[in-house]
């Protein structure tokens, strides 16, 4: 039992950690341009190289590039009915859904208010989907590289276009190719064909036509193996199918599930060490790595423990409970709320909570995946996050709220950098020196930029959640009452703002095709709100740190001395952990209490 539950999560953490060492060396080698490109690649590099850039030019290129990507994505999706590779005649998506989807894929969020198998043609899957899977993932990594170059006071921040090229061609393509082959071998389809019509064994399982004939089942296929590899490696998380990694074509076996999960971890893990290698601060990056690993292990253990080892509280017996609550209509102003005893349902729960799990992968695979996918801002799912035990579901939310262990490619390390700057600012003063990071003094301007980048995230989660919680936009969309309904909204905005993309399904956000007669009532509001949140939470926290690093890097470097705060010690690790936990708790403890904790502690129908 113990082995069955814990082997998978720990094997994953160990494998990803081991792979991070060689991979980070390769990453640093490529990003520092120490390779000798093939003649044809060299020719391309010369063509796209627009010269060394400063932080404004680099950020400008980043924004322009994204604008082009946005327009391109919008064109592909809005022309879907008229484009090739669409034998099943998929029609036009609702405009708000297109906006949401384009924003979402461009930013590596991949929040899906649609289902790929129902709403996308293979052309859209390839030219919109796969394109964005590669490129959006490269943007965060490029930004991190630029920040590293700034921090080590390079003459320029590099060239954005060259960085994107290096990431996509030399990093993503080869690794994705290997993973695609694994998925292909395990059973994922890889074809231009769109669907198969099959006769079901049980006659009429798919319903009958007006004439009384049994309908055939439509099985959607496509270039799934290629899609899947980059979906996971790029921590994108937007599935080919609506069911994402729980679908047997995306994730056919327990082995493919292992690689699926591993794929989303390797780049975020390796990037932290790349940071150390490129800055020549290996010990510092190992300290960061250990801090991240500790936090990640905590979230994984938390989720698995409360979901796989603990029963569903709603199905567990408990005594009658009596609560005193105010009642303005009663004479005393108070009334008692009585919750009757539950004797427990005849459900065997020794395997934990099995609702919404793919049993092919094992009992703990869903919880493990849920924790990891939110920690690395991937957002793919192989089990129903909505069905996690309430208190277990706190952990994926924490992963998205803190968004820095290990976080998305580049972005997670950048977020961690912000926590480092804030932590050092406080601690540096405590040792009696003007705070400095890597020998650069942290001044007002750097602090301002770090704070802007750090503020966006809680703002984009808490304010919209508040607005939706009090209006019909939220109240009409939730599928569960009380605390769980609140969690659904909270999760949706957390996922959008963390550029994660997973969701508590059940929230009514899908409009579907433009001609859909019964769209979810508040789908437009959700499309627009989350789309905007996604964009704000992507670009401000990307560009402000680039500027911050540029200002830091332009400062004179002071030498290391006895009075300097060391960033490669256990003390520093504790400081960093403390900073992250305290800031995180202060920001999100109230909503955690209103959502998962209230649901966990509350009786049915309020929670449980």
């Amino acid at each position: 039992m113990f082995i069955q539950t814990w082997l998978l999560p720990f094997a994953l953490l160990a494998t990803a950690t081991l792979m991070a060492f060689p991979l980070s060396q390769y990453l640093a080698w490529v990003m520092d341009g120490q390779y000798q490109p093939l003649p044809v690649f060299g020719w391309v590099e010369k063509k796209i190289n627009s010269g060394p850039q400063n932080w404004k030019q680099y950020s400008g290129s980043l924004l322009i590039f994204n604008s082009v990507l946005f327009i391109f994505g919008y064109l592909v999706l809005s022309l879907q009915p008229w484009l090739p590779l669409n034998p099943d005649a998929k029609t036009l998506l609702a405009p708000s859904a297109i906006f949401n989807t384009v924003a979402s894929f461009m930013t590596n969020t991949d929040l899906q208010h649609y289902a790929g198998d129902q709403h996308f043609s293979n052309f859209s899957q390839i030219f919109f989907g796969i394109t964005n899977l590669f490129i959006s993932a490269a943007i965060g990594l490029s930004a991190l590289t630029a920040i590293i170059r700034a921090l080590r006071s390079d003459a320029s921040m590099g060239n954005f276009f060259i960085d994107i090229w290096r990431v996509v061609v030399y990093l993503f393509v080869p690794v994705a190719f290997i993973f695609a082959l694994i998925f292909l071998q395990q059973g994922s389809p890889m074809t231009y064909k769109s669907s198969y019509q099959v006769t079901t064994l049980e006659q009429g399982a798919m319903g009958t036509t007006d004439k009384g004939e049994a309908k055939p089942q439509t099985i959607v296929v496509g270039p799934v193996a290629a899609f899947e590899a980059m979906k996971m490696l790029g921590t994108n998380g937007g599935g080919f199918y609506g069911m994402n990694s729980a679908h047997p074509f995306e994730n056919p076996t327990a082995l493919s599930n292992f690689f699926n999960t591993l794929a989303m971890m390797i780049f975020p893990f390796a990037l932290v060490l790349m940071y150390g290698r490129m800055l020549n601060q290996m010990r510092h990056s190992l300290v960061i790595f250990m801090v991240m690993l500790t936090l990640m292990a905590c979230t994984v253990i938390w989720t698995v423990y409360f979901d796989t080892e603990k029963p569903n509280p709603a199905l567990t017996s408990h005594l009658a409970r009596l609560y005193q609550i105010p009642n303005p209509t009663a004479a005393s102003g108070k009334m008692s709320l009585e919750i009757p005893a539950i004797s427990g349902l005849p459900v065997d729960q020794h395997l934990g909570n099995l609702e919404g799990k793919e049993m092919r992968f094992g009992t703990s695979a869903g919880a493990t995946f849920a924790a990891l996918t939110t920690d690395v801002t991937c957002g793919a799912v192989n089990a129903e996050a909505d069905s996690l035990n309430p208190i277990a579901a706190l952990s994926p939310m924490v992963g998205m709220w803190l968004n820095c262990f290990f976080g998305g490619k580049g972005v997670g390390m950048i977020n961690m950098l912000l926590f480092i700057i804030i932590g050092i600012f406080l601690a540096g003063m405590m040792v009696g020196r003007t705070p400095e990071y890597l020998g650069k003094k942290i001044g007002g301007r750097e602090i301002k930029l770090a704070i802007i980048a750090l503020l966006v995230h809680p703002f984009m989660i808490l304010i919209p959640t508040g607005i939706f919680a009090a209006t019909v936009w939220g109240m009409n969309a939730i599928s569960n009452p009380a605390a769980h309904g609140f969690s659904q909204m909270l999760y949706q905005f957390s996922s959008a703002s963390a550029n994660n993309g997973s969701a508590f399904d059940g929230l009514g956000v899908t409009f579907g095709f433009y001609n859909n007669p019964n769209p979810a009532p508040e789908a437009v509001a959700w499309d627009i709100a989350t789309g905007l949140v996604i964009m704000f939470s992507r670009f401000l926290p990307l560009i402000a740190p680039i500027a911050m690093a540029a200002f830091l890097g332009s400062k004179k470097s002071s030498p290391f001395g006895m009075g300097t705060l060391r960033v490669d010690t256990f003390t520093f690790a504790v400081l960093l952990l403390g900073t992250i936990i305290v800031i995180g708790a202060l920001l999100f403890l109230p909503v955690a209490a209103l959502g998962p904790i209230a649901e966990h502690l509350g009786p049915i129908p309020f929670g449980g």
Partner: protein
Amino acid sequence: MNISPEISPDQLGPVRRVTRRALFEKQTSLAALKQAFVMLRPDIQWKNPVMFVVEVGAVLTLIFILQMLWGHEKISVPITYYIALDIWLFITILFANFATALAEERGKAQADSLRQTRQDTIAYRLQDGKAKAVSSAILTRGDHVVVTAGQIIPGDGEIIEGVAYIDESAITGESAPVIREADGDRSGVTGGTTVLSDRIVVQITGSKGDSFLDRMIALVEGAIRQRSPNEIALTLVLSAFTLIFLIVVVPLWPMSYNAEQYMMGYLGVSEPIKSLGTNIPTLVALLVCLIPTTIGALLAAIGIAGMDRALQANILASSGKAVELAGDVDILLLDKTGTITIGNRNATQFLPVGKYSENDVGVMAAMASASDNTPEGKSILKLHSAQSEIGIKVPEKSTFIPFTAQTRMSGVDLPDGRQIRKGAPDVIMQFAKDHGGSIPKELDAIVETAASKGATPLLVADGNMIIGVVVLEDILKPHIHERFARLRKMGIRTVMITGDNPRTAAAIAALAGVDDFLAEATPVKKLEYIRKEQAEGKIVAMMGDGTNDAPALAQADVAVAMNAGTEAAKEAANMVDLDSDPTKLIEVVEIGKQLLITRGSLTTFSIANDVAKYFAIIPALFASTLPWLQPIDIMHLHSPTSAILSAVIFNALIIPALIPVALNGIRYQALGADALLRRNLLFWGLGGVILPFIGIKLIDMIMVSLNLVS
């Protein structure tokens, strides 16, 4: 002239002019209290963004109470709760204002005592060679004034003629008079000090209202309080935290409304169910508890108190920034003489060569020094008279040959034609050779041994005969080794500057325990050294007194000039040490570090405090809509309203409780950065998390036992 220019050997612990004041003196406290109310004016309060937010919240709550009194707002909780809440919000602001005002009042008291030295006196201004009595107030830069024994020097200036004993106790508090003389590195005088002997002519260098002291007074009084870069950055961080908590608290209203709606639906009641989560004053209370009010209240006081501490150490700083920068110093340049060693070199040994005896060396050396007024010469005489009872007799009509930089020797030509000389080894050897003498074999070894011990050997020759060696040794100040060890622990590298040759310098450096030395230093060499270190990103501090130090002082990041030093040095420096104590830099560094540590620790404490407040307030907010959140309340507080009041009261009381810490500063200990961080993180960070749990529970228990809460 019977004035000996010797420096008192004990300059390590100068007497403080201002002894540490009691924290809460009645007079200053009352003035501060009054000022605290004045500062409630929004246009003044605005300068402290964190407390301004509290003020807005307190006014909002007041409006809410008034609305309730007029019956516009439905009350679900007794109105006394709101009134108590509002009172405590205002008390919070008053505590904060009091802290700032108290620091300012204390500064003012300091400044007043300084200003007393500035009172108008009669000055005798030289006009056309005649002294004319005028008021000191009308003196301008460049005026020459005559000051004689018993008179007060009318303004800051430089002696251009004469030498005098001066009582500087008005400024430094030290009663022993000091020597100031023209044409030296000790020519600076300060207005308000008294001449005890002789007559001097002083050239006034600062006009009224523009002297260093005036600027310092203004700085301490807060009249021109510029915030240092670190303080600005910290203010930004605090504002950001305020904004963050606004982002946290504001959406709680609709979220609580959501919970209320559901509870109403479940119970099927039509009357709205109100929780404290949609209650504006309660949300204001939550916000006030969360935003960093503790550090926000004390930040200004910490800065003012830092300047105050510098003043208490008899340091006049040109800005708070300079003091703060001192905390960052990487390299400390110290003059050997007077800082590492006591005064000048003393003769300690006579070493004979050849057929001569020790006494011969002593006699010859003493004769050569008989009219040598340099400290070295005097020490030779002193040593000789200590070793033999028979004094020396220099025959009449002898000619004394003074020391010059060209000859590098001095001595006496006796009437019988004997030429007695003492001087640097190479010069005397040449002198002996020139007169046909030979060099004893063992001489080289003796000279070598003396030099390698850090001593300076002088040769004594009688015509062509070399008689022996006089060993001049530097005497290290007591405890200097410990001081450097302490600096090393602070992470500061000490560099000794000396005119000695590299070998002697190395020996003394090793003896004193400095990390590095700059031998045969010239002004240009010092300047180059500083520039080189700065190019590597280091912050260089330097202490100097002479005019030739001015370029290096101007280049150094932290430059402390001695008050006794020349005006050029003082102008180039950003701090002046009134005690003219060369080891004062160590104290300046500590004051700078203390400033930052106090700020950092109190900020950490302030933020760490919030964790406990959440545990008190969150269950209280949702007591009527999510009563099952009660297990979060690990403090088991009496009721929702008492929980919120306890948190607010704790939040207010912690401010005055920490005023002593803010004003006295958190002591800096030279432990190395890591150990210091562990210590402060544990004490202020972890302590900051735990303390409020205890404090809030205690306040709750007290209120319950006094029947103050329902």
